[in-house]
């Protein structure tokens, strides 16, 4: 059974149809790399999965929870579906540890001490044990993004959605974040990544999805798809970015 099941999802902003019938099945442990041109609907698809956007037709079921507009139990859904953003979006008035502790204490009602222990564990995992009490403004972009990943991990999500999480980083900081994601993938975390890092998509991904004009234009095993893109659009895209 799939952990995330997306069926024929359509989504419009006004008259602009952005998702034109997208279907995807994501199993536990999958590392799905979504690639495609800017504006092809990658972010919108990701945001539909955790209910940041609503869609007009089709269905999305994530970890057994149906994501369907106003009736969705968003709190339950988001406890199990984490998201990391391009712009980090750390809470600037809280330290790294406090950023990580917030959701466990507020949403899951975990004690401060327990949350702090979890924060120490997940921050160690992203290599930031020494930065627990640093404020976001005292951290580099790469460190901030790793705190953002740790913040999601503290909720023990079943799926982690990552929207171009290295795109806002200076090139020399990209790898430290990718290494963390790679380690998560090795540990069996289910990941859905929108990314422009083609090499990473090929080496770490278990599944590649090429989106084009609001549709899944091509999908398959990354190495195979990259080695022999079937559609001219993907051939052109791969040619441009690599």
């Amino acid at each position, binding site marked *: 059974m799939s952990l995330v099941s997306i069926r024929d999802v359509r989504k419009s902003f006004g008259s602009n149809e952005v998702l034109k019938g997208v279907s995807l099945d994501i199993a536990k442990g999958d590392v799905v790399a979504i690639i495609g041109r800017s504006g092809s609907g990658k972010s919108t698809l990701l945001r539909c999965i955790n209910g940041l956007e609503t869609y007009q037709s089709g269905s999305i079921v994530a970890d057994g929870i149906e994501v369907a507009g106003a009736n969705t139990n968003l709190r339950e859904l988001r406890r199990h579906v984490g998201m990391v953003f391009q712009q980090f979006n750390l809470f600037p008035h809280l330290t790294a540890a406090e950023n990580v502790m*917030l959701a466990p204490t507020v949403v899951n009602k975990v004690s401060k001490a327990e949350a702090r222990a979890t924060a120490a564990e997940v921050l160690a995992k992203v290599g930031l044990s020494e930065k627990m009490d640093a404020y976001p403004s005292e951290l580099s972009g790469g460190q901030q993004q790793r705190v953002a990943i740790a913040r999601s991990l503290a909720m023990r999500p079943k799926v982690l959605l990552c929207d171009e999480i290295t795109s806002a980083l200076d090139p020399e900081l990209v790898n430290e974040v990718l290494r963390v994601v790679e380690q998560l993938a090795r540990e069996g975390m289910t990941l859905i990544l929108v990314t422009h890092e083609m090499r990473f998509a090929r080496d770490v991904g278990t599944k590649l999805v090429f989106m084009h004009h609001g549709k899944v234009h091509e999908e398959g095993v990354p190495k195979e798809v990259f080695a022999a893109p079937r559609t001219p659009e993907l051939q052109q895209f791969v040619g441009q970015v690599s």
Partner: protein
Amino acid sequence: MLQFSFWDILSNLLIATQWTIVLSLIAFFCGGIVGLVLLFMRTSRIAPLEWFTKIYIEFFQGTPLLMQLFLFFFGIALFGVEVSPWMAATLALTFWTSAFLTEIWRGCVEAIPKGQWEASSSLALSYIEQMRYVILPQASRIAVAPTVGFSVQVIKGTALASIIGFVELTKAGTMLNNATFRPFLVYSLVALIYFCLCFPLSWWAKKIEGRLNVAR
């Protein structure tokens, strides 16, 4: 006839000033509490709550404070409830203050980047939790300066309470003028006292604002 010395006039004005201060404080704190509740409603994205606050704010911002004082003073009396000038002034100033504070604070809430809402949403926080733990701690930093600045308007607004007979600084001035026939002296002193109340606040507001701009 009774003779008023300069010091008699001044001490009487200062006694009345206490009531200006008390009324200002009550209006500001009660208005702040009502304003905070309205702020939650105004930014809740729940249509009926938003509409209610919008109309409320339009009414209290869009009509003269004096009319509001009259409405509370004479309006409630229509229902057979005795309203003292003190009560009417407190109610009118509280609601009037809350409308302005809500709008000031809404601006501060909207200045917080959308990403803060999205990140906290994605962590399963509810709207109230987002406001409480993520948005307001950041918004309140930028809200301090305009809020302190607005407190000056509240102090000046209390002067209107004199018209419904509440004896505060302005009313005391009028009464002393009637007794002494020295309008220039009396009202100069009244103005000076208002200035002494308001100037430190506006000066402080400017200072905080300057500090925030540097911090950025």
